[in-house]
């Protein structure tokens, strides 16, 4: 029983970390609450579905899905958000603008595909097998997702902490003006980071579709989970955000295990509200405070 809880927590941690990291890449350098990230997540799954029903192969469908997600994210930045970046309260304006983008995309998907839950199936039911371990049960979809999500996360960490793009993006996140002064092309770095984040969101959307299925509005709760993980993790670093996802994953699996899975998201929203109120700086400074004592 405890083993199952551990496995569930690990799984939801990896999925949440993936979504949270994707939002972190979009949010951190640009500082925009890009709400239509929720639409980016689901767009990829629906693009995959669309390509499959059109008779295209799973590999092509996957590439098309990620391309669609990347395009939606980077075009929003390039065509819409960038125009507002000069104005005084760009943050809130971009937020309102992205709400509009979200409504448009979500409703196009609703009209095109309907509001019911749809499973994304790359291989005629191969994901629906149930694997029974000695003291726990996982589905083949979950197993595949763990591999993909883990690899993607590891790749992201390398890109963010070990490449020149990552260094530039971190410097823009820290201080955009200063980064510009020392010769970083801030607009380009933001666009690249948004594109990368959107692509990762596309991967996350596919994985969600593989396991629990997708609805046009499903992206919204994942977006909020990402924000929650970021806030818990101290709103500062990619590693912190992933740590936040670890806590949130454990909390959600615990809620699902001991109470009921339908309350898992509710508890998460309560946690976000509590953190924004009591500890907007996240758990990181909590540790520091303990150390100081």
């Amino acid at each position, binding site marked *: 029983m405890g083993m199952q809880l551990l496995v569930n927590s690990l799984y939801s941690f990896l999925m949440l970390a993936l979504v949270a990291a994707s939002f972190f890449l979009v949010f951190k350098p640009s500082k925009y609450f890009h709400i239509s990230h929720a639409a980016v997540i689901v767009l990829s799954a629906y693009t995959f579905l669309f390509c499959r029903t059109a008779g295209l192969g799973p590999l092509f469908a996957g590439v098309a899905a990620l391309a669609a997600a990347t395009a939606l994210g980077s075009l929003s930045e390039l065509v819409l958000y960038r125009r507002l970046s000069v104005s005084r309260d760009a943050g809130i*304006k971009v937020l309102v603008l992205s709400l509009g983008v979200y409504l448009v995309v979500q409703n196009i998907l609703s009209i095109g595909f309907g509001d019911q839950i749809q499973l994304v199936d790359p291989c005629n039911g191969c994901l629906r097998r149930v694997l029974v371990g000695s003291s726990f049960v996982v589905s083949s979809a979950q197993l595949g997702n763990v591999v993909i999500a883990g690899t993607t996360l590891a790749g992201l960490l390398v890109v963010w902490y070990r490449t020149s793009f990552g260094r530039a993006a971190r410097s823009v996140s820290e201080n955009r003006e200063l980064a510009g002064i020392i010769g970083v092309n801030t607009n380009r770095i933001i666009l690249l980071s948004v594109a990368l984040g959107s692509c990762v969101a596309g991967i996350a959307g596919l994985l969600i579709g593989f396991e629990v299925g997708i609805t046009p509005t499903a992206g919204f709760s994942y977006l909020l989970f990402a924000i929650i993980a970021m806030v818990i993790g101290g709103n500062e670093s990619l590693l912190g955000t992933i740590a936040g996802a670890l806590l949130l994953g454990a909390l959600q699996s615990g809620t699902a295990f001991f109470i009921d899975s339908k309350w898992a998201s509710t508890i998460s929203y309560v946690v976000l509200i509590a953190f924004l109120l009591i500890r907007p700086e996240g758990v990181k400074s909590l540790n520091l405070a303990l150390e100081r004592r």
Partner: protein
Amino acid sequence: MDYFLHIAIVASLYAMLAMSLNFFSGNTGLLSLTHAGFYGLGAYGWALAAANGLSFALAPIIALAAVSLSALVVSLVAFRTRDDYFVIITLSVQMLIFDILNNFSVITNGPLGIRAIPQVPLISSAGGMAIFAVSSALVIYVALWRLNRSSWGANLRGIRDDELMMIALGKPVPRIKTITFLIGAAIAGYVGMLFAQYVTFIDPTSFTISESIVVLAMIVVGGLGSVHGALLAAVALVMLPEALRFFGIPGVAEGNARQMLYGAALVVIMLLRSGANTRVSSL
């Protein structure tokens, strides 16, 4: 004829929602996304109170008290934050309210919703409801317009432009903000009651985050802070999809097409007002 009554009712309901959100968010510049939540709480409060045999005099009081109380709690929480974080926190409250309506099946009957909501005799017909909804909207319009012109409205705009200065002037800023927020939420709750009366069947999907965004779109299109703008934008944005219907847009996707249109309106307006010196308060 029933079709036109229906449009009149829907337009009045949205107009009241937009005007009440505008009263708080438009004047203070704090954009709340919890409005559909309060609207839903009003609808559920009324439906549950009336379905459980409370009299038609008592049920509205219970419903409005429930909405105001939740709004009070939300304001205590949300007013600690500003700007985009205020939006995010009201957004999570909206998701929370939806979750409670959707999951707390013992009380709310979950996704199945509440059927057979008792009908108040005079407004059970479409005609009666239309007259009642339109006159409610007119009363609220005049009331909010007067309030906006009064010193209360001036205080709100003062808070928007320079909260610190208002505090320095000795204005009870937290109290002004809370009361305004409560008035807005209570009106939304009232609209929810009318909605529950009109459709006689409610389920949580009428009170989603998308609905909150739609109302926000209305006040952004109408110009934040403008009562006339909120009224006109709400009526226009309800009428526009109806006009499109005559050009053969299928009715099945009507709700989606409408939300899409509102989203597009939001995008266009934000781009038109993207100048470097326009502040969100003067959208």
